[in-house]
Structure formats: structure tokens, C-alpha cells
């Protein structure tokens, strides 16, 4: 019996009825991407709070302390809501497991949340100012880790768009975190005192943009999901908002409205980045070509050109 051959799909690879090889991340919107934003904003705000405290920017210091505390507390809440069994949230601290970025991250977030809450409540109530200062200094360690561990969290998966990007993602996340924290500073602090927040925002936007460009260039096929469909639209919107927000931040010393506009644009840009990255991960997992093609190329390169006979390379799916 003769049967029509299956049409070769656009990318030359074989699969089982086009089904995904790996499972897509089950993390939800808006929980996970919003947490990524909040964690970044909290972490970078902590460092801003320290520097503002010791360089004579009291209003900025106060704002950053509160932003750090609110960000990590709200972020932890979103993470708990994300669990299949939220009542077992504390199982996250059942052990410390270095091979699990989520375990390491849970401890980092617990420390960041506790310390930033202490720092913010001391600031607001005026009670135990020394303890508050000590806590804010300690967030100088937990803050940057809170902002960047999430890159390891997503990269330590089988999702090609995430795993292959493990070098650039931490810098992308760090830049996004700086831009987010700078934006909060610009939105909440009078412009006379917000100059450092503007510099932080512009620096962050630059780091995020450069890291994003480098990532998409280097990844090749694995980076395709960042350019296509909804993820592509989100990533492009993020780029426009971030670059535009940074341009506004550069001139925001001249007027309050410019600062507010810049802060809003940067915040929206940071959120678009985080939503775009989650979506790209989903797309990357759902299409088997992103999993199969690089692995097949790796094997073929190892086996040498003679190993693959043409008959074996025919598409095998039913017609």
C-alpha cells in the first residue's frame, strides 16, 4: 500500500505528532512575572535605601526602604498563591538545598522580606533606629541576590529559551530591577532629591537593553520565542518603554511631570519584560523544534557526517 509522504515541516526535525518533548512551566500570570518585577524592585530599592541613607537623601532613603519592604512582602504573597498547595508554603523552608535555586531563593527572599520589613517599620515608627539601620545594611547583601537569583530560577530548567540564556538573564534582570527601583524613586520623591534615582533608572535601562540585545543575538534558534507572537510583542514593548523611559529620566530633572512619565514608562517596561520572558519560556517549551533541533545537531556533529543515512532522515509522522 502506498501512502502520501508527510510534508516536511518548515524546520527540519522529527517529532511525535508535533507534540512538545518537555512540559511547559505551569507558573501563572500575573503571579510569577509580577513577582519577578517586585523581587527586582525590592532588591534594587534596598541598595538605594543604603546609599541614600549615607549620602544625605533622607526622603529617597525612606521611600526606598518602604518600597523594598512592600515589594518583597507582596512578592512572597504572590508566590504563595502560585503554589498548588498554598497551605504548605512553609515547606519551602523545610531544608536548605543548594541544588535548588527555588530553595536558595526562598531563603534569600525570607531574609530580604524580614530585614526590609524591619528597616521600613523602624523608619516609619522611629523605634529602634539602630536596628533599622543594621537591617537596611544587611539588605545590601540580600537585595542584589533577590533581584538576580530569579534569573537562575528560570534558567535552571529544561526550557531552551531560558536555560540557554543563563549568562545574559541575570544582567537583564539586574538592569530591569535597577530601572524599576529608579522609577519608584522618581515617582515618589521630589525631583530635587531624586537625582540619584534618575541615574539608577537610566543605568538600569541601559543594562537591561544591552543584555536583551546580546541575549537575542547569541541565542539563535533558542532565542526565537523572544521575537515571535505575544512574547515578541511584549519584549518589543518593553524595549520601547524602557528606552523611552530612560530618555525621559535623563531630562526629568527639569520638571515633575517628566519624572512621573518616566517612572510610569520604566515600570510598564519592566513588567512587559517579565511577562515577555515567561511567555517566551512557554512557547519555547511547547514547540518541540526548540528542544529537538539543537540536541539533534549536537549528536550529528559528534557522530560525523557519514552517520546519518538519508533514508533515516525522512519525516516519520503519518501522512
Amino acid at each position, binding site marked *: *500500500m502506498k501512502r502520501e509522504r508527510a510534508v516536511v515541516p518548515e524546520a527540519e526535525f522529527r517529532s511525535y505528532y508535533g507534540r512538545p518533548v518537555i512540559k511547559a512551566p505551569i507558573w501563572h500570570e500575573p503571579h510569577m512575572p509580577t513577582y519577578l518585577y517586585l523581587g527586582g524592585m525590592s532588591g534594587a530599592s534596598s541598595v538605594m535605601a543604603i546609599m541614600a541613607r549615607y549620602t544625605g537623601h533622607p526622603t529617597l532613603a525612606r521611600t526606598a526602604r518602604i518600597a523594598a519592604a512592600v515589594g518583597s512582602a507582596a512578592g512572597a504573597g504572590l508566590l504563595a498563591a502560585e503554589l498548588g498547595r498554598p497551605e504548605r508554603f512553609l515547606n*519551602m523552608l523545610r531544608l536548605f538545598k543548594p541544588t535548588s535555586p527555588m530553595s536558595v531563593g526562598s531563603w534569600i527572599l525570607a531574609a530580604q522580606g524580614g530585614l526590609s520589613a524591619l528597616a521600613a517599620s523602624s523608619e516609619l515608627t522611629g523605634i529602634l533606629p539602630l536596628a533599622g539601620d543594621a537591617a537596611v545594611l544587611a539588605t545590601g547583601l540580600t537585595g542584589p*541576590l533577590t*533581584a538576580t537569583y530569579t534569573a537562575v530560577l528560570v534558567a535552571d530548567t*529544561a*526550557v531552551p529559551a531560558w536555560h540557554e540564556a543563563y549568562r545574559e538573564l541575570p*544582567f537583564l534582570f539586574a538592569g530591569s530591577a535597577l530601572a524599576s527601583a529608579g522609577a519608584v524613586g522618581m515617582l515618589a520623591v521630589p525631583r530635587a532629591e531624586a537625582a540619584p534615582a534618575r541615574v539608577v533608572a537610566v543605568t538600569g535601562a541601559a543594562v537591561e537593553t544591552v543584555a536583551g540585545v546580546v541575549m537575542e543575538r547569541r541565542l539563535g534558534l533558542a532565542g526565537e520565542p523572544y521575537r515571535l507572537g505575544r512574547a515578541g510583542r511584549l519584549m518589543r514593548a518593553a524595549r520601547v518603554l524602557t528606552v523611552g523611559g530612560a530618555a525621559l529620566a535623563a531630562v526629568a530633572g527639569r520638571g515633575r511631570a517628566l519624572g512621573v512619565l518616566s517612572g510610569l514608562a520604566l515600570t510598564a517596561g519592566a513588567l512587559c519584560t517579565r511577562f515577555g520572558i515567561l511567555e517566551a519560556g512557554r512557547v519555547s517549551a511547547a514547540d518541540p523544534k526548540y528542544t529537538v533541533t539543537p540536541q539533534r545537531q549536537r549528536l550529528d556533529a559528534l557522530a560525523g557526517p557519514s552517520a546519518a543515512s538519508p533514508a533515516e532522515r525522512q519525516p516519520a509522522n503519518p501522512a
Partner: protein
Amino acid sequence: MAERMGFFTDTSVCIGCKACEVACKEWNELPDDGFVFEATSYDNTGALGASTWRHVAFIEQTRAVRVDGHEEDVDRWLMSSDVCKHCTHAACLDVCPTGALFRTEFDTVVVQPDVCNGCGYCVPACPYGVIDRRQDDGRAWKCTMCYDRQLGGLEPACAKACPTDSIQFGPLDELRERAAARLAGLHADGHTEARLYGESPDDGVGGAGAFFLLLDEPEVYGLPPDPVVTTRDLPSMWRWAGAAAVSLAGAVAVAFLESRVRR
């Protein structure tokens, strides 16, 4: 620790009866898969998942075969019962933050349902797409290689039910020897397309506790051709994240010091 136990699934003798799927569901009291018509040959479960711990794949192929000196298109069916690989270096186990996933005395990888908090991290970590979270239940589930039966000295339900011994259970070393002999036999009979998958301790997951004899490339069966445990790059990932964290702190410091200079 007892001997490392494993599965050798010889797909060349699989007849696609799905007795393994049914036996697995019966023994482990797994919920149904929703009675979906997949329109993919005789496959009605589609893929491994939270409630499908054995999945029989059906592939209908037409291949050019040399008959009496000329090429002729010949049809064949490939059938294969997929299962959790119980990797030597298991990503799901590595990334599980609660310790719900653990390695048993049989060197298999099992989820403790009373500990799992449904964080879902194991799901995208598995390079084979095996483990999944159950929607209504909120926890992650996968094949236990019938841990309970093994503790009682019994073989797993799927292997017990398999009528052709396509699914073989036993000490992994023994299974590897048996598989090598079977492969040599098939090659001698002219089935040069036969190959072992997951048997090598040198592969990206350090060798699978459940390995296969396949008659085509792994991706045709929905298996990744060259899976690598994601945590292999973890030290490098932390180094990059550390550098980014230091850069973040440095950038803020510079921003403040610079604006103080400018004032």
C-alpha cells in the same frame, strides 16, 4: 542500599496493548485522562503526565525498503511504552525545594505526596517532560517504579502485566547486559536501525534507570535525542548571577556617589 533497579523497555516486541497503562492506573489508583480522542493513531493518552505514568506511543511509518533489487515503500508500526527515566542525575530531584522528591534505596526517584507543596519547579526542569502537576490536587506526580510493590518484593505493575516482556524489570546492570545482547541479535538479523536509548552512564543525565531499545530516532517517539540535566550548568549560572548582583550594587553606589559629586 539495595541494588539499583530499573526498566528495560524493548520496543521491538511491544504490541501496543496498553496493558502497562491499565495496570499502572489500577495499582496506583490514578485518575482517568479525560477520554480524549487524540487522532494520533491508537494513542489516546498523548504523553506522560501527572496521571499517566506509562504512555504507549503509536507511530505509523512508510519507509523505502530494498526488495528484490528495487526500492519499495513499506509501512510499519512502531509502538513504545514510555515511562519516567529515573535518571542518575535527576533534574526534578535536584530542583525540588521541599525535599518531596527523593532517591529511594532502589536508586529510583519518587515524590512524597505528603511533602510536595505544588511549587511546580520540577515540571519544566525534567528534560523528558515526564512529571506534571495535577490540576485539582495541586501536587506533582510521576512514576514511582512501584516503590510500594518493590518494598514488598514484587515487580512493578506495568512489567508484571506486559504480555510480551517488552517491559523488563530487574537490577540495572543485568538489564544493560540483556539489552546489549538483544541489540547485537537484532543487528545480526539486519535490523541496523535498532539502538539503545538512555543506557549509557556517559549521557547527559548520567544514564537512565529506565532505558529503551528503539527502532528509530528518539525524537520520533517524542523523546529528546540528547537530554542534559539542567543543573549541570548550575555553578556557572550562579557565577553569572553573582556577577550581576555585584554589578547591581556597584551601579547604585556609583549613581549616588556621582550625584553627590555633581551637587
